[in-house]
């Protein structure tokens, strides 16, 4: 057998797959409220009383169906955050996501658990867990979670 070294071959390509994601009636309700009314709604479990945002059909803990929507404030607490500095490929766009950007877990008044969303602030020195935040809506809303552009830090004091 020949002892010749052959150049090692590596092929490179991209997987590109479109997909459709049905929001369902529960997620759709929140999006409708965001788009038309600049309001946020959650849903309450009839068994444990937990209020979830975004609304969904089933309480994960109790495994019961929920149908009591609850109006949620546009204001809440920043429960955790990070500022992302490293540039990475966003699989949705196939492009690098612009950095730095701040995002965190926001628990709005009236809800029992939080959700992830963008923060206006990306300066680490200006971010602290427990800060009060408020939703800033996009002027052009299309019925997307990004109808909330981001959450801004307010000067309000956290009562807890």
């Amino acid at each position, binding site marked *: *057998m*020949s002892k010749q070294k*052959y*150049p*090692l*071959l*590596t*092929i*490179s*390509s*991209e*997987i*590109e*797959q*479109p*997909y*459709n*994601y*049905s*929001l*369902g*009636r529960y*997620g*759709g*309700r929140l*999006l*409708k409220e965001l788009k038309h009314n600049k309001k946020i709604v959650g849903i309450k479990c009839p068994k444990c009383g937990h209020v979830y945002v975004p609304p969904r059909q089933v309480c994960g803990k109790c495994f019961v169906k929920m*149908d009591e929507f609850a109006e949620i404030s546009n204001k809440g607490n920043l429960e955790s955050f990070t500022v992302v500095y490293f540039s990475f*490929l966003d*699989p*949705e*766009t*196939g492009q690098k996501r612009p950095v730095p950007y701040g995002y965190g877990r926001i628990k709005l008044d009236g809800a029992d658990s939080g959700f992830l969303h963008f923060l206006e602030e990306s300066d680490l020195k200006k971010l602290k867990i427990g800060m009060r935040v408020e939703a800033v809506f996009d002027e052009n809303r299309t*019925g*997307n979670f990004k109808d909330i552009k981001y959450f801004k830090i307010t000067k309000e004091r956290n009562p807890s």
Partner: protein
Amino acid sequence: MVNEEIVYHGRIKVPYSWSVGEYGSRFFYELKENKKIWATKCPKCKKVFTPPRKTCPDCFVPIGEWVEVGPNGTLITFTIVRYSAQIHPIPPPFAIGIIQLDRAETGLVHLIGGVEVEGIRSGMRVKPAFKEDRGGSLLDISYFEPVE
């Protein structure tokens, strides 16, 4: 409850790469540089694999012996594709089949061309039609065509 059915149209676009390994690299190098098709032969069961394997899947022993196979072979089976899809290498109708090259025991999947699709038969003797401009891929062979 308001009947609100919203569908989000999204996309996943992620890059990937795939190293073919030393054995695969040699196979494609030989295709590109020398228009030759090589296989590997298990020292234990003597089975000749193309594309070449580094280890025999059955005996699970390392394979070190290379044998040249083809270039001609026999068309074992084929199908004619008649619908369009972005992923297809050429527009329909086109034929794709499994070719057992002379001296090999496994099949190679490739396009069958140089002939009207209605004229293709299982059991036909075929030979590779190499491209002039080769880059080191299976498509360095445009298709397998009937041996006259």
